[in-house]
């Protein structure tokens, strides 16, 4: 029994140390006065960089901050599918997503996310651009429909200069009448001879004629394909193609071919998009809010700890210790799982700190009852843990269910998909799960190891009087 307890204790200590390492920020500035000496020091924690069994593991853990904290822009776009045939809609929305991602990537925005969602009668794109401060530029990037066109290279201008200067590069291409409008769709196929992935283009009636004319007149030349005025592919015309079905070969791996086909489809199936929601926040407001929340949280935690000690004495102190471990584990888990921290998320985390001691309170109250019934201290402690467990389990299942409704992990479109609500739900769920561990396992181990029956001696003394 005692050996097992010590093993569990060592495990908890190890887990806490590892978590502490992950949870602490990279740099800690110390600035305080000690014995009238000003101490100013920066402690730097080295990032994880170890070699285990010949494999190098390198990772530095950062807390991901949501848009409401670090500032940025969130846009919801409605895709107008009126002109798109039912069977092409999935392809069209996927292409639109790809195009927006490509644009924001080219623009150099860090960690953009673009997701699609389908409600009962609408296709939507949700675009998150963290850290972007100029909304006009951002909206330009995401709010315009993709433009695909075919441009012929002028061989006379394809000089050495064209490879070094951007202007000269773009100048060597001349517009043709062929655009994305005449392209019906692009598909990835496999060349039956070489088994290499190729991209098949299919034009409509009008496109077939224009394409036939272009390919007849310009054999041997390059007919470049531009998306949003950036070159996407530069295939050379090998033979005249009269049936409106072209195949681009060479140089694609499967991933590349898929990617290019999706982007071609963005031009082939252009969907007008409309901004239906826009939220933007400057970085300063979020920062201010975080500082306030964290300060409020620290004060709250301090008060809860004092409260626990006042109520339960040494047991309260152990609950507080478990609470600190709870905090460390929570932050570490956020970092490892890459939970995006939002303001409601912080509120959720603080709320679960208030709830985390619930298990302890249930157990301690139960212990008191057992003691009152005349059980020995040790026995009362074990009974307290055992009997309280049922309540703890049942009560927390309800919270877990609510958290799951908020997180909506299966992406039901009849439930909320807002990042803020999900962020809160996720912190609630993680909080409940960790608090079960710290509130029950950690507290029990610490109590078995560190607490002895003090009431016994007192009782003896009072009896002898």
């Amino acid at each position: 029994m005692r050996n097992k307890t010590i093993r569990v204790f060592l495990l908890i200590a190890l887990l806490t140390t590892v978590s502490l390492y992950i949870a602490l920020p990279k740099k800690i500035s110390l600035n305080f006065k000690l014995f009238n000496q000003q101490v100013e020091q920066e402690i730097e924690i080295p990032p994880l960089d170890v070699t285990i069994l010949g494999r190098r593991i390198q990772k530095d853990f950062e807390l991901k901050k949501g848009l409401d904290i670090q500032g940025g822009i969130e846009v919801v776009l409605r895709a107008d599918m009126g002109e798109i045939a039912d069977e092409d809609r999935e392809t069209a929305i996927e292409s639109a997503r790809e195009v927006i991602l490509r644009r924001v990537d080219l623009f150099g925005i860090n960690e953009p996310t673009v997701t699609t969602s389908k409600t009962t009668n609408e296709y939507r794109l949700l675009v998150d651009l963290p850290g972007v401060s100029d909304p006009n530029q951002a909206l330009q990037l995401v709010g315009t429909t993709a433009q695909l066109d075919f441009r012929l290279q002028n061989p006379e201008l394809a000089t050495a200069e064209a490879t070094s200067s951007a202007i000269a590069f773009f100048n060597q291409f001349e517009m043709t009448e062929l655009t994305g409008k005449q392209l019906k769709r692009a598909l990835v196929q496999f060349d039956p001879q070489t088994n290499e992935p190729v991209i098949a283009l299919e034009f409509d009636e009008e496109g077939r004629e224009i394409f036939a004319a272009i390919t007849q007149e310009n054999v041997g030349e390059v007919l470049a394909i531009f998306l949003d005025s950036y070159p996407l592919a530069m295939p050379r015309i090998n033979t005249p193609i009269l049936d409106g079905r072209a195949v681009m070969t060479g140089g694609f791996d499967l991933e590349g071919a898929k990617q290019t086909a999706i982007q071609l489809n963005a031009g082939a199936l252009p969907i007008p998009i409309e901004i239906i929601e826009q939220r933007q926040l400057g970085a300063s407001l979020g920062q201010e809010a975080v500082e306030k929340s964290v300060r409020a949280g620290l004060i709250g935690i301090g008060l809860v700890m004092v409260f626990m000690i006042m109520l339960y004495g040494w047991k309260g102190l152990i609950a507080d210790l478990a609470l600190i471990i709870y905090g460390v584990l929570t932050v570490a888990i956020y970092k490892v799982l890459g939970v995006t921290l939002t303001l409601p998320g912080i509120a959720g985390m603080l709320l679960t700190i208030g709830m985390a001691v619930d298990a302890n309170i249930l157990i301690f109250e139960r212990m008191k009852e057992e003691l009152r019934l005349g059980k020995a201290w040790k026995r009362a402690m074990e009974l307290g843990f055992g009997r309280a467990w049922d309540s703890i389990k049942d009560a927390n299942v309800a919270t877990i269910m609510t958290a799951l409704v908020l997180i909506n992990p299966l992406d039901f479109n009849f439930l909320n998909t807002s990042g803020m609500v999900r962020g809160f739900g996720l912190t609630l769920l993680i909080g409940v799960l960790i608090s079960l561990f710290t509130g029950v396992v950690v507290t029990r181990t610490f109590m078995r190891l560190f607490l002895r029956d003090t009431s016994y001696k007192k009782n003896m003394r009072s009896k002898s009087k």
Partner: protein
Amino acid sequence: MNFMKWRWLYFLISLLVIVPGFISLIIFGLKPAIDFTGGSLLEINFIEITENQELSVASLEESLDEVYELSSIQQSGENRVVLKGKHITNDLKNQALTILTDEYGEIIEERFEAVGPSLGKELLAKTLTGVIIAASLIMIYVWIQFSELKYGVSAILAMFHDSLILLGIFSLLGYFYGIEVDMLFVTALLTTLSFSVHDTIVVYDRIRELRGKYPRYSLVSLVNTAVTETLSRSINNSVTIIIMLAALAALGGDTIRWFAVALLIGAITGTYSSTFTAAPLLLLWEDVADKLRHRRKNKK
């Protein structure tokens, strides 16, 4: 202690709290934020404003008259103002910013939100679905756990009791102080459901345990004993949650202040209702069931 002797008093207290809010809900309703109605919000920091320039509702309305139909203007800090109005596009917002720059010098656009009207309705539907799903899951769980329908139904009724109080108080807050109900409020409402049932389950759990130990006891004395034994735990636990939420509400900043207040109300009424609504409801259920049985017997 014979807590249940005064069970009518507890129902009366609940009614006294619920009724004003409920009336307010019917007459005034809730004050929905743009999350629900669609519309726009623009927060501006006037950094170059001079002392003799006045930032008033009238002056702002007059300057923006042509481009931006405003519904409210609030001060959010020194020289910082939150404008709310009809849904506007980014272009119109830019025009509004230009006008303000001309008039007041350099400004910083701190925050801009524009929600289309269709999204608002959708959020409302999603909210209701979320509440119904969460409530049904919890009811089924409680029903299965305690193997009697009356536990599930009473737990749900206590949950609605808490939701009504929260909605009612926010209806009053909206009417008198202009506090809006937004997406975060919905989250708080759902969390209140789980607070409520969390404590209720602890009480029911104790009733179940006692029922196993003393099968001959009447339900009233079982409930009484269970409430007596769990009350101090209930209060102590709530105090810790209330400490955290009160700190957040008081010091946490504007963005989550009312979220924290909503959670705080939920935590308090959740604690009250577990002991003083969910438990007596079990007895009420039993009384009604007894009377029905009697009537059937008499008819025979």
